[in-house]
Structure formats: C-alpha cells, structure tokens
C-alpha cells in the first residue's frame, strides 16, 4: 500500500510541471498587458509613461526566456511571485481566498452526496417506479440548468420572495450565507451522482455474484449492503472525486454571482487585468487540488477494492 501511495504521489509532480509550463506559454502569447489593461475600462486616458514604468518594474520588458527562467526558478522554491495588481505575495492572496473556496466546495459536495447518492440508489432498486422516473427527470434537469440562471432563481425565491436567506455575500461566514451558493454549485454534481449511482447499482444488480448471493438464500437487505453497495461504491467514489476536484474551478460563475470571496473570482479578476503571477498561481493551485483529490480517490479505490492495488 505504501509503494502504491508513493507511486501515485510521485505521478503528480510531472503533471504540475507540464501545467505550469503551459500556463506560462499561454499567458505569454495572449494579447494585452497588465499596464495597458489598467486603462481598458475607459475610465482614464492611457498614460504611456506609467505603462513604461510598470513594465519596467514588473520585468515585462525582459526577454521571454529570461522571464521564463525567473518563473521556473521561483517555482522550484515554491515562490509563486508577487501580484502586479495588489503588490502582495500571490501565496497570501490565495491563502486569503482558499478558506471560502473550500467551504463552498465541501458544502456543495456534501449536499450533492447526501441527496444524490440515496436517490440514485433507491431509483436503481425500483427501476421504472415513480421514484425512479422523478429522480431521473430531476437529474436531467439538474444537468441542463445553467448555474447562473439556477442561482438567480434561488435568489429570487429564497431571498426576494420568501426572505429566508441573504441573496449574496460572505457575511461573517455563517451557514445562512453559504446555503444558496452551495446548493447552486452542488446541483450539477448532485444530478451526475444520482445518474451514476443508479447506473452503477443497476449494473451490479445484474451481475452473476448477486444471483449467486440470492441463490444462497441471503436476505435482500444483506445482498444490498454487502454486495451491491460495496461494488457500486467504486463508480460513486470516482464520480465524487472527479466532481469534487473540479468544483473549485467550476465555482467561478457562482462566486461572481453571489459575491463569494473564493479563488475563482480572484482568478477571473486577475485574467481580466492580466495579473499574470496571480493567474499562474491560482491555476496551479486549482490543478494541484484536482490532482490531490484524484490521488486520494485512487487510494480510496485501493482500500475499497484490493484488485485495483494488485493491478
């Protein structure tokens, strides 16, 4: 198990390096610079002297290869650089936002698991029933609804009409402020989980070993608990892992809509103003998060199903 764990962790490193290089290349070729983008909103006339001073200060006049060397050297020292926009270390900016991002992603995922998995499971145990049909219609709707629109709908209903919850903001980080953005963000993974769970459970239910278990006289409850649930779990854990890993990145729209202070909105702001160190740092953290979750999922597989470890 230790060798397996180490191997999986070591596989993360080259992925991070490739992603870091890709980010550097992409943001070196896209048009627009930080200094020029300060004037892009049309609120002030361009100031060529300021543009020159800022390009000089942030080393943007240096040759591409020199900037690349600095980037790689800094990265090797785990230094993500300094933000052009805030003039603060990128690590500090990400730290400021990470808590809110994790809070939102975890809450969304918990909501998706707690609602999606039981409904998917029950739907599979009674295929063709009213519950099955309703769950699948709900799941397809959940996958089809644009996040932005669904968020506005929730705001309209629970804030404006019912006045139960605040429509926006982080407040003091209380549950009240978290509910609407978490439900909005959680609805897509919920729908996906419900469908995947149903498909996974149906697949297992038709397997030979389930027929064998039944023929041995094992009770329905025991078959479901010991054989169906455990075997369907691999597929469910895969879906949870993939969804959870990508939630921080997917939260961009939700964060903007609900004025939630996560790293998604930090990324959007930074891309718009070409604050390249923050863009690079934020994307790296999102990628790293995705890789960590997936590595964790692999390790969980091995615990659930020893055959995976053997392979």
């Amino acid at each position, binding site marked *: 198990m230790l060798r397996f764990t180490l191997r999986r962790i070591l596989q993360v490193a080259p992925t991070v390096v490739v992603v870091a290089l890709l980010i550097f290349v992409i943001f070196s070729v*896209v*048009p*627009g*610079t930080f200094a*020029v*983008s*300060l*004037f*892009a*909103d*049309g*609120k*002030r*006339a*361009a*100031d*060529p*002297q*300021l*543009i020159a*001073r*800022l390009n*000089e*200060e942030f080393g943007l006049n240096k040759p591409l290869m020199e900037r690349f060397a600095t980037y790689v050297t800094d990265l090797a020292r785990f230094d993500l650089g300094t933000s052009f*926009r*805030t*003039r*603060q270390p990128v690590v500090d*900016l990400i730290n*400021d*936002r990470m808590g*809110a991002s994790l809070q939102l992603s975890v809450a969304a995922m918990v909501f998706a698991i707690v609602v999606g998995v039981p409904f998917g499971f029950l739907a599979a145990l009674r295929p063709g029933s009213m519950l099955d049909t309703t769950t699948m219609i709900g799941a397809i709707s959940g996958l089809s609804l644009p996040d932005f629109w669904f*968020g*506005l709908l929730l*705001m*309209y209903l629970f*804030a*404006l009409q019912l*006045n139960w919850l*605040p*429509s*926006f*903001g*982080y407040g003091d980080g209380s549950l009240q402020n978290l509910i609407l953005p978490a439900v909005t963000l959680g609805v897509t993974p919920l729908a996906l989980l419900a469908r995947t769970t149903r498909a996974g459970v149906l697949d297992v239910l038709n397997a030979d070993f389930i027929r064998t278990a039944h023929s041995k006289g094992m009770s329905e409850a025991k078959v479901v608990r010991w054989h169906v649930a455990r075997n369907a779990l691999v597929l469910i854990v895969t879906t949870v892992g993939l969804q959870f890993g990508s939630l921080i990145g997917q939260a961009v729209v939700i*964060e*903007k*809509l*609900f*004025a*939630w*202070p*996560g790293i998604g*909105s*930090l990324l*959007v*702001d930074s891309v*718009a*103003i*070409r604050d390249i160190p923050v863009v690079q740092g934020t994307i790296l953290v999102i990628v790293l998060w995705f890789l960590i979750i997936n590595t964790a999922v692999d390790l969980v597989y091995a615990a659930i199903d020893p055959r995976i470890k053997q392979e």
Partner: protein
Amino acid sequence: MLKRLTLAVMLGLGVSTEALAAGERHGGTLVFTAPYGSSFATLDVQASPNTQEEFITQAIHRALYDWDSIQNKPVLELASSEDVSDDGTVHTYHLRDNAVFHSGKPLTADDIIYSYKRIANPKNAFPGASYIAVIKGADEFIAGKAEEISGLKKIDDHTLEVTFVGPINPGFSLMQNTTVIYPSDVKDEASFAKTPVGLGAFVFKEHIPGSQVVVEKFDKYYEEGKPYLDRIDITLMAEDAARDIAFRNKEIDVSILGPTQYQAYQGEDALKDHLLEVAEVYTRTIGFNPTFEPFKDKRVRQAINYAINTPLIVERLVKNKAYPASGWLPLSSPAFDKDKAPYAFDPEKAKALLAEAGYADGFEFEVTASPNESWGVPIVEAILPMLKKVGITMKPKPVESSALGDAVTSGNFSAYIWSIPSGPDPLNALRCFLSTTPPSACNYSSYANPEFDKLFRAAEQERDPTKQSNLLRQANNLVQDDAPVWFFNYNKAVMAYQPWIHGLVPNATELAVQPYDEIWIDETAPDSRR
C-alpha cells in the same frame, strides 16, 4: 430629496448641498456596493488607479482638493484657504489646523510633501506620479535625477507653498484617488495595504478579501457634525442581475444600473422615483486611424457621422441611458457648447460626401471592439446595416477588453469603439487632440490641426475661466467638424437608491463614488440599517 434630477437640471435650479441634506439624522449603517470587480486590488489607494478603490478612498482618505459635484469643479479640501501668485504658478496653502489622521497625528505640511514624494518615487511606479508631475521639479524627481521635488516648500507646519509648472488649476490633479495624503510618521509603508490610516470621515475596521470593507465613524473628523453614519459596509457586487435582486430585497442601499435595468426601473412605481442620473464625463466613439487611406479624408469621416442614426441606437440599444454626443466635451463640461447640434442622420448627404471624396462605391474597414454592451460589439452590429446603405462595409473585430487597450494604444487598428474620459478638466480632455500628443497617450486618431493647436495654447495661458471656456468651446467645435471619430454618446450614469437614503450627489466624474460624510439614513430604514 433627489428624484431623477440630472446634473444639468440641478445646476439650473441652483440646488445646493445644504438643501439636499435638510433634516439630517445621525447613526445607522449604509450598505454600499462597489460594482466594478469582485475584489479590491489593495487598500493602499495611492498604488491603484482602479475605480474600485475609490470607494475606500472616499471613506478613509482625503486629498488636498476634492471634487464638488454640485459646483462641478475641484475645491480645496485639506486647506482652508490659498494664496495664488500673480502669474498663477505659486499656490500657498493654509492647511486645516483641525485635520487629524486616524492614528491621532495632526496633519502638517510634512505629510503632504511625504505623500507626494511617495507617489512620485520612481521605485514605486505609482499611477499618481503623472498627476504630481504638475508640480515644478516633479519630472526630475520621477526620473530619479533629483532627491527632492523642488516645487514643494514647507513654510511652517500648516503652510505649504507649491510651485506648479504653469498657471494650471491644480485641483484636477491633486483631488485624485491616487494623490491622497498619508501620515508621514508611518513605521512600515507596507501597512498602508493592510491597515490604512487616513484623514477621512471613517476609520478602517475590517477587510474580508473578495467580499467587503467595513469602516466606522471617525469621531475626530474635521467637519463639524459629520459624518452622519456610524458604519459603512462597502460590499463587492460585480454582477448586475445579483445586484438587482439584492437591491429589490433591500439588502443593499444603492445600485448602479445598466441599460436594461434602467429601463425596467423606470417602469416600476416603487423604483422610478429613486433614480439619480448624471451625464458622466465619458465620451463613447468610434475612432478612425488616419493611416488607413479612406480615413485621411475628412469628408469620409463626416460621411460616417451622417450615415449613422445615433439617436435610434441610443434609444433602442442603450435604452436612453446615454446622451447623443454633439462633440468631444460632454454635457457636464464647462466648455460644452449647448448650441452645437450633433451630426444629423442624413444618408443622402453621407453618400454625396463619399462620392466627393472618391468613394462613391464605398470601401471596407474593420472596427476593433470589446464585448461591452454600451460601447462594444452590440453597437457595431447595429451600425453595420446603416453604413451598408451608403456603401461602406464595416466588419467587427471582437477582442477582449485588455486586448482592445493594447490595440488602440499601439495604433494597431483601422477603427476602434471605446469609451474615453472627456473630463472633468476640459483642458486636459482636449489635450488629447493636440498635434504634439502622441497616439500612444490619448491622441489615438493622430489628430493634427494647427488651428486647434493655436486655440488650445491660448486657452492654456488664459486665466479667466469664462474666456478659457470660450476658447476651448471653439476648439471642441473644430474637432467636431474634423470628425476624427464617430461621435456616439456621453454616458448617462444611473444610480438607484433606497427611499431612506439622503445626501447622494450627481457626481459627473463617477456617479458610483459618493461623499459618504454627506449621506444620512432616515427613520424609515429597516432595523438592520438604523
């Protein structure tokens, strides 16, 4: 009570700040929205040129001058009076003797000298350096060739003599967000970005990055009886639709409206009476690059102005949240010519001008445009069929906002559509058409007309404001006639406010930025605000 009063109407009626603020009530919390992004770049406002940081400035900081929205001009803020030399270059400021920083330190001339040197310090590369450059010797300091700014001279703790490079109105430069005054006794300058200390009416309390800044009343503020509010939550809300719901749900006290919301709010009885409108100092145009052969001919540029039905676009697409432009300087400019009519919609005249210029069969050009709904691709798409009718084929070249700035400042365009500041200082706004102003600055259309230069130079030297405005008006009319751009519109900024909010002013420089020390909340406000 302000009810849909435009700046022009307000000025016409002679409405004063006092009249607006009759019956003030102390106490309460204002929930104010900062709509231009989902974060504040920094709390060190001297370092940031963004509009988003101006919300922090208004609460926490003060500059030597401030913008008076009612008088529509910069006025002294940290000085109680000034003496100006006969040639208009030397200003002696008598600083307020009751102005105190939030740290308890009294304001002195040293703080102003320290702040201007920090802003102009070449190592900092701060955006306000170009404003400080109006002070004699600042250019040498910015270039790193001098240890001091020679034009700054401390007479005593409360008297400061400043020599400027010419007989300018220094208020326009020294009222900026980026030229505010910091205390000179700071131990660590990095602290300005975390725990700002200023001279403003409110003290910094808390910053939740990406969410809000909270400020509380400063008891030692120099304006007696102010501020009225106990606390302000300056909340980040970039999304129009979310802001709309929060405003209707009474969670926020003000909201800046886009065209669609403006139209919707006008149609609702509960909302239409609480809209504050002002002609802001931004002119939206399509700029022409004279290196593109057809645009070298003035008749072609004029033909485009005649060929486009501007009022129709303003009405249908911009939902009347703009005023059709009749020249470069906007409605709120002291040099605006109210008698000058905009180009009329006259396709026949456009065709005739094109034929005269040798383009009877038309031509094709590309216009670089961002996705902005009020001055971007949607506007270009509306113009396409109008130009097609006179034989001109226009093709939109959609780019992202940052790339638009890059293309325009580097001259990499045939035409572009953009919103460009055209005030509040008319002299500075028209400087963009001076032949010596490079295209990389703001003379994007490489405009050059000796007659304009002559009028501008005369205005620059003129000390009588009325005579100066007359000269600038003539220069502005010259630009309109030469048509280096298609004159589209002047932005009409609209702010919706809750009925319990008082003291808002029609700020033509940026409506979203309000003087917080003037704002008060009446007893009809919800409990959470009172």
